[in-house]
């Protein structure tokens, strides 16, 4: 009797583990599938001409250069605003703030920023940057919108890396006559840099792939030339993919897959760089 009981228990365990394994596989395999599928379908479309040419024939032929350049501009623009602000905010939280009500309010605000739907950021960008500040539908407005959306990712990863730097380094530095800022700049930031960089790249990766926040703030359906100033609208890879897969009839399928592949390459490339920085820093770390 007891034997049967324990047999049952182990049978249940085996079945349960099998089920969980299956679920994990069902979660993970489609991801691999997506990447491989886009790679296989998109690779034939990608050529030098595709990467460096302008679209023509109503975007049904030619290249996607303006979208690639546009995404680069937007990513750089986002970095220009969000990195200094995000890292400074992280420094404040890790090095200056004490556990007061205000600090808790800041943390709640960061959590909420991270949870606001991307399309709501788009509305906000439209209201503040495009209309109120009269930047127009522009790279500047779109970059600012993406920056605020990216901010919570950068703040929280940067704060985590700053906090990981041993407290003793700070005490020693201060005891040797360093000011607080000197200590942060020469010791804490230096040690936390790889972690901060990883967070920055992951944040920018998200920004580069976003469509909704730039829909009404800076994305252009089609431009015959590259944007000339931050006040110009721009094409961008994710928006372009959206456009050619839903708005343009009789769009050649290879161009769609090719565009998806380039976008994926952009995003995964950044992801890979972040991973490499993180693992190399871990190996080199002296504490």
């Amino acid at each position, binding site marked *: 009797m007891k034997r049967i009981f324990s047999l049952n228990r182990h049978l249940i365990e085996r079945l349960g583990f099998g089920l969980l394994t299956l679920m994990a596989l069902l979660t993970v395999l489609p991801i691999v599938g997506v990447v491989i599928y886009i790679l296989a379908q998109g690779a034939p479309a990608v050529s030098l001409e595709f990467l460096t040419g302008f679209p023509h024939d109503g975007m049904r032929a030619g290249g996607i250069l303006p979208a690639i350049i546009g995404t680069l501009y937007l990513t750089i623009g986002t970095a220009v605003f969000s990195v200094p602000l995000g890292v400074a905010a992280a420094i404040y939280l890790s090095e200056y703030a004490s556990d007061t009500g205000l600090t808790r309010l800041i943390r709640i605000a960061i959590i909420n920023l991270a949870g606001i739907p991307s399309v709501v950021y788009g509305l906000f960008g439209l209201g503040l940057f495009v209309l109120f500040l009269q930047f127009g539908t522009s790279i500047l407005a779109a970059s600012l919108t993406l920056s605020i959306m990216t901010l919570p990712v950068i703040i929280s990863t940067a704060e985590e890396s700053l906090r990981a730097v041993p407290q*003793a380094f700070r005490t020693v530095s201060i005891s040797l006559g360093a000011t607080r800022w000197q200590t942060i700049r020469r010791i804490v930031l230096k040690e936390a840099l790889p972690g901060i960089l990883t967070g920055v790249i992951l944040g920018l990766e998200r920004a580069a792939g976003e469509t909704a926040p730039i829909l009404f703030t800076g994305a252009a359906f089609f431009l015959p030339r590259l944007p000339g100033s931050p006040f110009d609208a721009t094409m961008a890879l994710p928006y372009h993919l959206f456009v050619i897969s839903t708005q343009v009839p009789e769009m050649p399928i290879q161009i769609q897959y090719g565009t998806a592949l380039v976008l994926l390459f952009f995003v995964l490339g950044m992801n890979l760089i972040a991973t490499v920085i993180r693992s190399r820093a871990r190996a080199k770390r002296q504490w």
Partner: protein
Amino acid sequence: MNKIVIENLSLQYSDGTESLRDISMSIRTNAITVLFGPAGGGKSTLLRCLNRLNDLTEVKAVGGQILLDGENILDPGTDTIALRRKVGMVFARPVVLPMSIRQNLTYGLELAGEKRKSRLDEAVERSLKLAAIWEEVKDRLDDPAIALSGGQQQRICLARVLALQPEVILLDEPTSGLDPISTGKVETALQELKKEYTVILVPHSVQQAGRTADYAAFFLQGELVEYNDGKSLFTTPKDKRTEDYITGRFG
């Protein structure tokens, strides 16, 4: 000659518990003054007052003053940066900064604005020699300091303080994590150092207190129980509690 005069110093933690109670003592130059007693007696807290390192933690002075060369360092207008260059500190756990040996040594000087390479090199060699570690590291000054042994690291920490040419050196149980040989080297270095500096040491044992003290102060629960020259205090303590502690009846 008195380098530091502490007058009626009382300290509290931010939660209101008392840390030091009405301490008054004078610390002489060119001597090793030992602050000892059971844990929690307030020795380290007192030490950290002398270079205002307590500013970083939740401790506040509620009364009294500390005169360094006649000036009250607890005064809010005190230039703490200059004070910390003048009053160096070695911690219980050796903490080398994550950089090369040389950079560890020049860190404080560079912050103070010294850029001349010859001066920096000079300071590196002089202070490493004073800390009795020159011979061991002179050929690998550009290696990461973390690669050294614990005992070597602690002497690097001492040298790092010396490089700033301070006037007072505070040591908070500097040998607590070290083997007897390294401990011996540090203690020998201290005997050399007192010729030029004012040395204040929180020892990690009564034995070390006895070995090193020119002057000794016994702290118990935030109170200075007894303060005398080392020899008298360890051979003929006046207070019963001091006697009990050094003969090992408690603590």
